[in-house]
């Protein structure tokens, strides 16, 4: 057990930070989001620099991939990175043509990135199914939740099933991806709020000096840190069912709390478009609903821990 980043990991993360500062960020996310666009440019940059496929490299693996997903989320990058770098490699050897959207067969709701995805990976329970998507096949769904959404009906019946057991693998890696993405998103939301309360003055002092606020933010920090480290542990361990489920359960519950607190403490300005908080906070809502939501992750945690079959 060694929880400090190695030199190699530190170097990767440092290089990634620089890249994300240039190619991602909340402003960019808002601009693309207003047009319902996918950040192909960011995905290309991540791909060319090797960050997008770090899990498949010799020297790195799913932990590094989770660290990358977390960092990209923290910089408001809305690309299907979790799918590409954690879920697909967890299900099969060969990469899929991206962007890759993830959906569940028993959930007819809108799917993240469906309108821009080239491939759909569908959780059918026992197996995962790989489905090639036609351009324009998905029906865009207007969304305020910080990600482009679309509905896919007919596509779900096509494609190729992966071997037995691939469904479970897909769900586990999807949980790890969600946890990592939520952790990065929460971190950004919290950091924005901290910055705000440090400088916002009321009653003759910075509102961040009020103990009630301090305690609430400190509780959020504890939740975010726990989420981030459980996600990393699960990724490193190869997304076994229990570790993956508890990471997602913790991150999902934390996300709901962080959403509420960051908005409460940022007051009216937190809801405006000029302030960046909504970029992150609304995504927390969307992430919290994916793959059966917190309740689903919690049940999966209990089953994995105490019941023989998941």
């Amino acid at each position: 057990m060694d929880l400090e980043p190695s030199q190699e990991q530190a170097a990767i993360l440092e290089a990634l930070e620089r890249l994300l500062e240039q190619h991602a960020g909340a402003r960019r996310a808002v601009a693309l989001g207003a047009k319902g666009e996918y950040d192909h440019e960011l995905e290309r940059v991540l791909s060319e620099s090797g960050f997008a496929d770090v899990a498949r490299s010799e020297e790195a693996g799913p932990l590094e991939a989770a660290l990358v997903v977390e960092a990209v989320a923290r910089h408001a990058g809305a690309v299907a990175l979790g799918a590409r770098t954690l879920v697909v490699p967890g299900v099969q050897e060969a990469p899929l043509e991206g962007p890759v959207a993830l959906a569940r067969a028993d959930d007819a709701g809108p799917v993240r990135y469906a309108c821009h995805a080239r491939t759909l990976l569908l959780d059918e329970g026992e197996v995962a199914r790989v489905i090639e998507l036609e351009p324009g096949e998905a029906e865009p769904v207007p969304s305020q939740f910080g990600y482009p959404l679309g509905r896919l009906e007919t596509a779900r019946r096509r494609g190729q099933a992966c071997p037995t057991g691939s469904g479970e693998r897909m769900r586990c890696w999807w949980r790890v991806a969600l946890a990592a993405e939520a952790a990065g998103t929460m971190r950004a939301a919290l950091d924005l709020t901290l910055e705000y309360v440090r400088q916002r003055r009321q009653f003759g002092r910075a509102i961040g000096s009020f103990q009630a606020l301090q305690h609430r933010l400190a509780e959020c920090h504890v939740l975010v840190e726990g989420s981030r480290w459980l996600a990393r542990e699960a990724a490193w361990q190869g997304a076994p069912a229990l570790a993956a489920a508890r990471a997602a359960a913790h991150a999902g519950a934390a996300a709901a709390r962080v959403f509420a607190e960051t908005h409460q403490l940022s007051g009216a300005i937190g809801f405006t478009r000029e302030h960046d908080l909504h970029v992150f906070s609304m995504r927390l809502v969307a992430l919290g609903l994916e793959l059966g939501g917190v309740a689903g992750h919690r049940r999966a945690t209990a089953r994995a821990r105490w019941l023989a079959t998941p």
Partner: protein
Amino acid sequence: MEFSWSDEEVRFRRELVAFLEQVLPPDWEQISKDGPGGDGQARFSREFAARLAERGWLTQHWPRRYGGSDASPWLHAILGEEMWARGEPRGPQYMNVNWIGPAIMEYGTEAQKQQHLSRISRGDVLWCQGFSEPEAGSDLAALRTLALRDGDDYVVNGSKIWTSYANHAEFCFLLVRTDPASRRQRGITVLLMPMDLPGVEVREIPAVVGERYFHEVFLDGVRVPVACRLGPEGEGWAVVSYALQYERVGAARYARASLTLDRLAEHASQRGWLEDPRVLERLGEASALVDAARILTYRVIDQRAHGLPPSADTNVARVAGTRAEQAVAELALELFGTESLVHGSFGDAQFRSAMTAGVAVGASEVQLNLIASRLLGLPRE
């Protein structure tokens, strides 16, 4: 960054668990029901800690010259987990090995190290912690117990309260004020006081969590030799701060919470409740919180293993641990229903300890303050 256990660590845990299964008596639950300070447990702990010491396991993380084997803090953390999960058979001695010994190593004179460290590492001595006073709880710096210099002694007058293990202890890690004109952190001194000195009186305060949990210690003209002073006079606050960092995560309370959860799940399973998705959700929720406390504690151990100075991550781990304990206690209430009210039952014990989780070893509010100021950069009032 990696999350594996080494072969050595896996082997150690396996050996340790086998040892515990062999050594703990069949009525251990009964013996340990009052916690580490209870009579039965304190008595058992002397023998038990000595046996651990014989195997080199009591203070393995200490430097060799003080009775350790320079082992990685991870081995000690593994030991702590297995101990706390089982209600702490080391009794009050877990305190000695976690922070009293380290404080003496850091600040002690050679004579003090000789006198105390070998006994601690042999598992041969019980200590108590003389910190809180009636007017100085969370605000420890408000302490008033006076120790005035008279020749080669300090004459100590005052009282301590909420002192765990005072009735059995041979020594007290005692915080006093040596400069009567001083206020707050300045002028505080640490004394390693023998408890059998004339003028020391211990009185139990009946507590809800079991026997011998809380005591008042009255100090009436106690003459404590100057040689018992730990660190420089008037600079005890630095010593205390150092010690507290170790104290905060010394007890692997999440390990106990985890075992409790396993029992709750077993109870639920026997009644067919694991078919109920709501029960699964509540169990999963608590499980995630317990593991968050675990991993955040590992962060702190890791920092120690890297030789990094203690950070406010200890406070983060502490808060996570409290939240996990409280969640498990609430779940016991929900799942066990009326059975949890039976005196001496599992749920009963959980409720009692949940009442203390947020106030023991540093109140949650203080932990949150430290997180806010040291990690979040939030300004003091």
